[in-house]
């Protein structure tokens, strides 16, 4: 299997014009052969490694590249 990090990064870059944050399901769908709880370990490892960053509204959590998209201090002001 290709490096999961590359798969995730390629997907995020391909969507970067439309989106900066992704639901867990969007990323897990990149690994269709994996059970969801295995995909979770993999994606969370990418967060621990600093490849991805959590973003939370308080009720929902999303994943994105560190520092991209709307940050708390600059919503809609880019």
């Amino acid at each position: 299997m290709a490096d999961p990090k590359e798969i995730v990064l390629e997907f995020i870059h391909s969507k970067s014009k439309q989106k900066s944050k992704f639901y867990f399901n969007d990323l897990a769908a990149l690994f269709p052969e994996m059970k969801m709880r295995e995909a979770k370990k993999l994606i969370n490892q990418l967060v621990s490694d600093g490849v991805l960053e959590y973003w939370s509204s308080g009720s929902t959590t999303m994943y994105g590249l560190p520092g991209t998209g709307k940050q708390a201090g600059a919503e809609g002001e880019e």
Partner: protein
Amino acid sequence: MAKHATPLLDQLQSGPWPSFVSDIKEEAERRHKNEKNVEYQVPVDVCDDLLGILELSYKDGTTHWKHGGIVGVFGYGGGVIGRYCDQPQMFPGVAHFHTVRVAQPSGMYYTSEYLRQLCDLWEMRGSGLTNMHGATGDIVLLGTTTPQLEEIFYELTHNMNTDLGGSGSNLRTPAACLGESRCEWACYDAQELCHQMTNEYQDELHRPAFPYKFKFKFDGCPNGCVASIARSDMSFIGTWRDEIRIDQEAVAAYVGGEIQPNGGAHAGKDWGAFDIEKEVIDLCPTECMWMEDGKLKINDRECTRCMHCLNVMPRALRIGNDRGLSILVGAKAPILDGAQMGSLLVPFIKVEEPYDEIKEIIEGIWEWWMEEGKNRERLGELIKRQGLAKAIAAVGLTPVPQHVMEPRHNPYIFWKEEDVEGGWDRDIADYRKHHQR
């Protein structure tokens, strides 16, 4: 003199109930006096600015808070809810005003020492304002700044043996009633099961990968003191499958007025003599009780564990001996489709270490919801969309009459191929032997 004039908030203080405005003003004053010489790590006027921004919101009719962003401490994907105000120049004390969710002690038993530690921590590293407790049951610490988060986490974990709670698309802070620690109605050790499941599912609590939030709650009996049936995606409610134990002598004592009904809870007013027909038997929702030769009889087969008779006559009626719990799924508050109560998934399961049977049900449901649930779709909404039958199949159970709420109003039955002998294929020649063209 208050930092900001707050005429609209002041009006709230004039009502008959204790006011949160008075509480915040009191804390604002306490912080300015600082009699304990606390080394405040967030602005001293945080409470003043909180009142100020709330007054402005009332005036403008709109919020001045922005949510989102920061999620927690290193390695955690939840536990902190980022909050910022959109008027930081006017209200610098609440420019950052993050909420920290902290796991409450099981059954909410506190020692005064623990409460003091908690308050000392929050006076120094936060606004001093708390919400005890949030709707999910956790300790909610309101208002701190980003640099304080790791410090607070260190203190909580190293000195107070306490973890952060859940937020975001996580398993949320589980909650239990006080269970067997004080209550004779507890059908299983709710606190123990809550503790074990919290430890078992640490990863789900701290690393978000669900479609949306997921809540567990553990009620020791159907009285439901943590209201799990209404407030949790998966509720564990104690029950029994044998008979209610009856002490006929105590029944007679209630009837004769020697024992006060409801443990004397309604003794403040003269309601007249206790009438077992009117106050117990006629109120039984399944009409499964009657008096015969001065003795109380119960048809236990019909009992739905409403708990009314046990609550009214606790010394005469006791929970059965063959105890366990029922698992219900899908309760939620209204956002889509309105509020929902839980639906029965497992009518009875024994609560025995190492709880493997219970874990199998939990994990079966999670697997199904994670695969099938849409983004931001609660378990209850998925059940409504795909049907309870799918949820039952997901955990490998066979439908039983308890899963049926009412007689079907859909007249169609769709068979699955594997349920039909020979499948969909047939031998047409064989068929023609008995049926003309």
